[in-house]
């Protein structure tokens, strides 16, 4: 009962953020651009098309009216059209988005596992070689530009070791994708019991997911380490030791349980970074997600597509933020569910 209220309050808090996100994308896509109709129509469009696009999206109206039409268009599902192909942006995003979700979730899972594990090990062995080692490892990930890790992985695992299928999509051409249920190949093939598709898509997923995870697990390991050390300084840890509990129990029960609370909050941040990183990683691994869609749209100067992806990314981050807030309730009894 309290939980419903709490979630309700969180949802209410989202209203201004959502409004702000819409306003921001609106400003970027129509106010910052010197001649939006021209830009939206694409570089090769003639004057007539430009004028039509401008009228269709009310780009010649006063700003507040434009905003009204912008929001209503969005709600009706009209996120604009690609100038070159004429495809509706929302349709493209719907096609590509599951691939990005699958990649980001896999990368999140990997990086949280590695991150929390290394963070705990580091903290438990503070200032010992293993601590320095894992911190430097994490630093290499965080400090690496996304393209470097992706290219290195390609170089080593595809070209030299030939361990995994050479880059190219989510599944081999020779294998039929599983029946569409969620759009996540791994889930869909599991549900339908399609093992060929499962192994094949897992094989395709693993390298880009690791490339993305390597970039951002450092955020989790760094925070886990810091909050573990913080927890280990607390009186309740000394108290737990004074009670005669073994060091292991003290670290992995008393300290870790508390350290996980702040680690939850970093999930949102990591997810946002992963979406951002997916633009580069998907491009290099030819992963057919919205990130690659955005990257190609930038090169072709397709504004509506880039703005559409920006919006869908922001909405996803907000959703993950909400999930993290709810997870918080279960981890921290001090959150009062008034």
């Amino acid at each position: 009962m309290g939980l419903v209220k709490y979630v309700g309050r969180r949802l209410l808090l989202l209203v201004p953020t959502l409004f702000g996100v819409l306003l921001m994308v609106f400003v970027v896509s129509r106010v910052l651009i010197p001649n939006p109709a021209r830009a939206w129509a694409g570089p090769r469009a003639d004057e007539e098309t430009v004028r039509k696009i401008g009228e269709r999206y009310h780009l010649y109206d006063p700003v507040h009216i434009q905003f009204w039409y912008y929001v209503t268009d969005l709600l009706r599902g009209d996120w604009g059209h690609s100038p070159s192909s004429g495809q509706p942006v929302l349709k493209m995003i719907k096609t590509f988005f599951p691939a990005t979700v699958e990649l980001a979730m896999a990368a999140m899972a990997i990086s949280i596992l590695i991150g929390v594990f290394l963070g705990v090990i580091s903290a438990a062995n503070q200032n010992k070689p293993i601590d320095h080692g894992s911190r430097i490892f994490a630093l290499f990930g965080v400090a690496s530009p996304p393209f470097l890790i992706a290219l290195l992985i390609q170089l080593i695992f595809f070209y030299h070791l030939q361990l995994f299928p050479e880059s190219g999509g989510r599944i081999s051409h020779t294998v039929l994708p599983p029946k569409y249920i969620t759009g996540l190949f791994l889930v869909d093939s599991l549900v339908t019991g399609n093992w060929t598709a499962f192994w094949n898509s897992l094989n395709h997923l693993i390298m880009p997911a690791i490339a993305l995870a390597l970039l951002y697990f450092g955020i989790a390991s760094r925070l886990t380490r810091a909050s573990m050390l913080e927890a280990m300084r607390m009186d309740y840890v000394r108290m737990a030791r004074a009670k005669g509990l073994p060091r292991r129990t003290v670290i992995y029960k008393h300290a870790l349980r508390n350290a996980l609370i702040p680690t939850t909050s970093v999930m949102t941040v990591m997810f946002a970074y992963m979406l951002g990183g997916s633009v580069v990683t998907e491009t290099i691994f030819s992963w057919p997600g919205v990130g690659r869609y955005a990257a190609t749209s930038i090169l072709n100067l397709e504004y509506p597509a880039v703005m559409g992806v920006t919006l869908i990314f922001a909405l996803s981050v907000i959703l993950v933020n909400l999930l993290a807030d709810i997870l918080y309730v279960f981890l921290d009894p001090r959150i009062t569910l008034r």
Partner: protein
Amino acid sequence: MSLLSILFERKELYITLRILRRNPLSVIGSIIVAIFVIMALAAVLVGDKVTPYNPYEIDLSRRLQPPSWTHLFGTDQLGRDVFSRVIIGAPIDLAIALIVVGASVVMGVAVGSIAGYYGGRFDEVLMRITDVFLAFPIVMLALAVSMALGPGIFHVIEALIVVWWPVYARTARAEAMAVKENQYIEAARASGSSNFTIVRNHIVPNIISPLLVYGTLDLGFVILYASVLSYLGLGAQPPQPEWGKMVFDGQIFLRSAWWVPIIPGLIILIVVIGFSLFGDALRDALDPRMRK
């Protein structure tokens, strides 16, 4: 007040330097940062005289040569010396980083100290605004903004400032709120000091050093993001060498000539690590808990 005395109380400087020297990683970080800065300054002051080869000179006869003593980092697809191009690309990234972080610190301190000190509606509005900014993945928002503004290095800088300042505003706000809890703020109010005086004399001097440390840590990451933008085709335009762009142009040769894309990428990595190590060590050195 000199910059150093803003950063440290007088006696503390000595201890800080001692902590910095004790930590080998911070020494490595400082060396990397120093080399990078010297490289950038030399490239600006002396131009391509400092480089072993003309970084712009195309010579197809020696294209895609692997690293050797004549070409330390090899040559690219147009036969240009990668090492020379790396050097000549340094100042752009340093400038971007300094401008973006500098502007963010200034904006952050201005907005954050006022929001943190006064609280109330202004603070509320600021928090909601930063929430909005933080809902976007940094790369994506910077991409969208700089694409909207059009190509060019200055638009990249503007776009990066747009995505960078909110974090500083939030940090400054949090610091200001902590400083505000000190009794000397109450004492200043009891003395009859105006709110503006209090913000200027007490809040700002006490929040500036954590923000500057944070900024040092961040310089590397600005470079990283600038390189991602130019990798994706925004920012520096040819023939101006920029590290991210060099990776993009070279990546089709990954299989045959790995050094063309990988080396500029590694250089970015090393510089970011340098700033991180340096900034980290600086922060640890200033953390009172480290000193016990």
